[in-house]
């Protein structure tokens, strides 16, 4: 006899209890603290902050813990919390020239004012599993005797006396700018409201601020694949890594009642300036063009792919004919959000038996008609 799908409420409650149980895992293993996640899984925390659009290490760590390490689920948790927060204003543009640098590399010049600063990077590690880390007491033996200040660790190798630069590290790309070899970048008016796709639906063509916001929030795997595709010829734009820098910058707001900027804190960001070839057009002489990436935390891969895709999406403005997915604004902006994508893909798990029944009725009709015709 047919049993109706009753007791949904109890099933859901039980499922949630089981989920909590599985999240905790074996209780003989110590529970993770948020500080441990923040400190030892810091790059996961960065990713959740970037794609969750919420700069809060503790909340990101909590989301990772609650999501059992499923970072897209953690990003979803961060976003659903963020959406309830009051917006009290926009900060001033951050000044990345004034960044307290941890790491800074340029692929376009051998040496640069302020120097190349290697910083903490996987780049030259040999990817050999370090079995020394597997033991319980792994770090006791490995801790550096004098934990270095970030940035000072690998040091400025050459070229660099920051004092001579007034404590500021000009972006490498400005060297090209001075000679007019790269397209100039005009700052927006301070009075123009900053776009926010979490408050207003995206319209096309999207303004660059909204496009960059969308790319910064976009799934890292999605932007990585698109950026990679441009390198392989699907929307090629001949990129050079002009500069990648990682470090701390101050965030300032100008409260209306004060009328002057005050610092509200410091955030870590990764910035990437791509230098791309451009043949010139009827109206513009040959000149390098720019692609830009900026994300919270230390996330060079994301910042670089963001810059590649940003440049690809500028094709129309630069008179190039869009022919590849990475150059297609609607394609990129509508499909890069992993919370949206994950939801819509997974909603296929929900019951669809009404639609399916409609299809069954139709296909049975079509088949019986086809059989009648065959007879």
């Amino acid at each position: 006899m047919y049993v109706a799908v009753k007791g949904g409420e109890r099933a859901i409650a039980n499922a949630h209890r089981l989920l909590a149980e599985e999240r905790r895992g074996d209780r003989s293993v110590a529970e993770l603290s948020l500080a441990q996640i923040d400190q030892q899984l810091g790059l996961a925390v960065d990713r959740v902050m970037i794609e969750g659009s919420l700069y809060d290490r503790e909340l990101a760590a909590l989301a990772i813990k609650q999501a059992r390490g499923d970072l897209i689920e953690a990003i979803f948790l961060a976003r659903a919390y963020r959406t309830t927060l009051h917006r009290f204003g926009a900060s001033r543009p951050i000044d990345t020239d004034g960044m307290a640098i941890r790491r800074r590399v340029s692929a376009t010049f051998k040496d640069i004012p302020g120097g190349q600063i290697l910083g903490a990077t996987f780049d030259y590690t040999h990817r050999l599993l370090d079995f020394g880390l597997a033991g319980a007491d792994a770090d006791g033996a490995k801790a550096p005797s004098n934990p270095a200040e970030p940035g000072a660790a690998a040091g400025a190798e050459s070229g660099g006396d920051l004092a001579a630069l007034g404590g500021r590290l000009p972006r490498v790309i400005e060297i090209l700018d001075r000679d007019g070899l790269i397209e100039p970048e005009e700052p927006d008016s301070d009075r123009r409201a900053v776009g926010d796709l979490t408050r207003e639906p995206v319209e096309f063509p999207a303004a660059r601020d909204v496009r960059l916001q969308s790319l910064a929030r976009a799934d890292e795997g999605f932007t990585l694949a698109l950026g990679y595709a441009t390198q392989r010829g699907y929307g090629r734009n001949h990129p050079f890594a002009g500069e990648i820098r990682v470090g701390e910058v101050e965030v300032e707001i100008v409260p209306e009642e004060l009328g002057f900027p005050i610092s509200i804190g410091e955030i870590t960001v990764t910035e990437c300036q791509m230098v791309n070839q451009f043949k010139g057009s009827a109206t513009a002489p040959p000149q390098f063009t720019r692609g830009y990436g900026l994300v919270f935390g230390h996330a060079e891969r994301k910042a670089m792919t963001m810059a590649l895709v940003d440049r690809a999406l500028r094709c129309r403005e630069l008179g190039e004919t869009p022919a590849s997915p990475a150059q297609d604004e609607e394609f990129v902006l509508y499909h890069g959000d992993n919370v949206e994508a994950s939801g819509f893909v997974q909603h296929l798990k929900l019951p669809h038996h009404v639609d399916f029944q409609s299809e069954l009725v139709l296909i049975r009709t079509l088949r019986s008609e086809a059989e009648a015709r065959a007879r």
Partner: protein
Amino acid sequence: MSHYNFAFLDEQTKRMIRRAILKAVAIPGYQVPFGSREMPLSYGWGTGGVQVTASVIGPDDVLKVIDQGADDTTNAVSIRRFFERTTRVRTTTRTDTATLIQTRHRIPETPLAEGQIVVFQVPIPEPLRWLEPRETETRKMHALEEYGVMHVRLYEDITRHGHVETAYDYPVLVNGRYIMRPSPIPKFDNPKLDRSPALLLFGAGREKRIYAVPPFTAVRSLDFEDHPFAIERWDQTCALCGAADVFMDEIVVDDKGGRMFVCSDTDFCERRRGR
């Protein structure tokens, strides 16, 4: 839940959504972009419908939530529970006592009444989407009433198969102007849209669109004079209540091809059996 506002959304957001709803009501069938918020439930689970419901619900409302016609499917239970927690409004399974009905994939069999609001959860709001993937293009097509491709598609189906090959989310023309997706309801439910005494609101969260059919508005399922629109029919009556002319769920009862057919609308079926 005291940390959250009534019905979860803050009042500013509700205002923004109500404005979009008012515009949607003023232009029946037109998709109004709105600043869809990230909800604490997954995209695809009814975030659009939940935002619309949260924006129109008041403390005196009586809420009914169904999924696939049933009040007791897991997602219907989950959404009803969400509003119970965030609004403490009364809920019901009875179509005729509900003032507000949120639904996924069905319109109840019990006729709707004046004063009721039905909120549909919409996955893809754009009726032309499978014919043209670009939003920039489809918006233009709607603006210019350029609907030829849709008629050609339906015509091609008929020449190839003898029928329009769309069984659910069957396109409709609203108020003689906009082609609209009725959300994935079976075409069986399409006639209930026409001149419905209830206000019909459609919310697509991920796609950030709201649209509406105001009460007593003409809604025509697209067809041709020589191939009129027709709905699904079953040879069987409901095995539980004996109803005919209702939408049926097909239940697989054994592994030998056994089937039974029962009402998809659980409230309708239960009340017939109770009589």
